[in-house]
């Protein structure tokens, strides 16, 4: 079943490649196989899976940094209860994701074009060569925090069929790489515009956990640069993954 499927997909890839057709508007039921190019059986086994991801910010007042999406087969770029990589620390403390996306075990890695404000949704597309085991991992910083991020460590999409989709809500994690002081000097988001990434600052716990939430200066933390409008609760975002190819 899967080999027939693969062949179909390879044909489709080839057809697309040869015609360079700009017909990705395939919301209609039928993919574009109206052009039965007769191919010699020298087809390269290059089957590409494509996933279209929508990412919605469910918070009251937390901007979310550009969503990072990493495809991998075995080792997730981040895992609950372990120490964050420098790439994740950078992402969670500043929102910058270049280092994070250069993850060495990534089969593919993409970033959303920009961050999203509360109530906004962004779309990202990731293409990856088909694998026996294929997982996607997601991460984005909650901008008005010290080192909070949200996402999914690992979502198995190996058996997701074209046209099928998965919907998940996500919780807020604490990268464990910075104390949650909420000061103007250390919160990089628009509420404070402080310093973002600092590799040596307060790596006290150094373990990824759930985030305890922010306190704010209206709820007992006098040195906080954050107000009640920056508070959040779980879930923090909604991610819908649709396999589009």
């Amino acid at each position, binding site marked *: 079943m899967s080999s027939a499927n693969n062949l179909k997909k390879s044909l489709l890839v080839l057809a697309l490649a040869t015609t360079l057709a700009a017909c990705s508007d395939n919301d209609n039921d039928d993919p574009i196989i109206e052009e039965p190019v007769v191919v010699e059986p020298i087809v390269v086994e290059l089957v590409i899976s494509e996933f279209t991801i929508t990412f919605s910010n469910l918070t009251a007042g937390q901007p979310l940094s550009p969503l990072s999406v990493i495809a991998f087969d075995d080792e997730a770029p981040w895992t609950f209860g372990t120490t964050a990589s420098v790439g994740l620390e950078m992402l969670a403390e500043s929102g910058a994701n270049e280092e994070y996306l250069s993850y060495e075990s990534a089969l593919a890695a993409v970033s959303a074009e920009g961050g999203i404000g509360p109530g906004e949704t962004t779309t990202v597309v990731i293409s990856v060569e088909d694998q026996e085991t294929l997982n996607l991992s997601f991460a984005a910083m909650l901008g008005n925090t010290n080192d909070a991020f949200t996402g999914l460590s690992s979502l198995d999409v190996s058996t997701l069929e074209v046209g099928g989709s998965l919907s998940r809500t996500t919780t807020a994690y604490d990268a464990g790489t910075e104390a949650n002081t909420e000061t103007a000097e250390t919160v990089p988001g628009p509420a404070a515009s402080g310093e973002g990434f600092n590799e040596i600052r307060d790596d006290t716990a150094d373990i990824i956990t759930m985030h305890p939430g922010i306190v704010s200066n209206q709820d*007992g933390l006098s040195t906080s640069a954050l107000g009640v409008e920056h508070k959040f609760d779980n879930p923090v975002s909604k991610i819908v993954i649709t396999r589009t190819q």
Partner: protein
Amino acid sequence: MKTSTLTIAILLAAASQSTMAAELDLKVTNLTKGIHFTPLLITAHNSEDTLFEVATEASSALQTMAEGGNIAELVAQATAAGSDMAANPAEGLLAPASSTTATLTTTDGNEYLSLTAMMLPTNDGFVGLNSWKIPTEAGTYTINLNAYDAGTEQNNELVVEGSGAPGTPGIPAAPGGDAGTGGTGILSGDTNTSIHIHPGSLGDDDLEAGNSDLSNTVHRWLNPVAQLTVTVK
């Protein structure tokens, strides 16, 4: 086709008459950043003998667990009820981001799982699971667990030695070693004496004084506070 459907129907009927025993692998993870769990108790029980029931008053056994971490009374109660149990699988405290595992073989009729452990530092907060139906289909199931308030003690947020005894106000310990002293005590208007979702700790930013002995950047949490993974074999 017809016969096999019939066979299945008969099997199902038989199964529902005497509910089959199950073998379970359990894994509990503390998801919080700054809260320890006291000894966990996980029981498989019938539809009646749950460890606790939300929106009802806590039993004295539950109160003893929620205020001081002592599960002896709950264990005695569950034993008397014929529940199967995994008691204290972590052999002590379960630290933030840590996991513990246990196996549980359930006897006929014990079709539900419940779980409790006190959350430290809190007055009477506990992580709980209330009568989760054990699936009959083999597989791995993940359940997010919330923080409950036993409703048996005001959340004054003062760390007081010896306050783990039921009815003695205060938080018996802060295992992370990061709590303060000298608080005057939170005066909460929470009058709910039933088991309810914990409103969360307040804390303050002064470890030597203020209202609370807890730190507001360390001892708060958001739900879920734990994750239970159940593998039905």
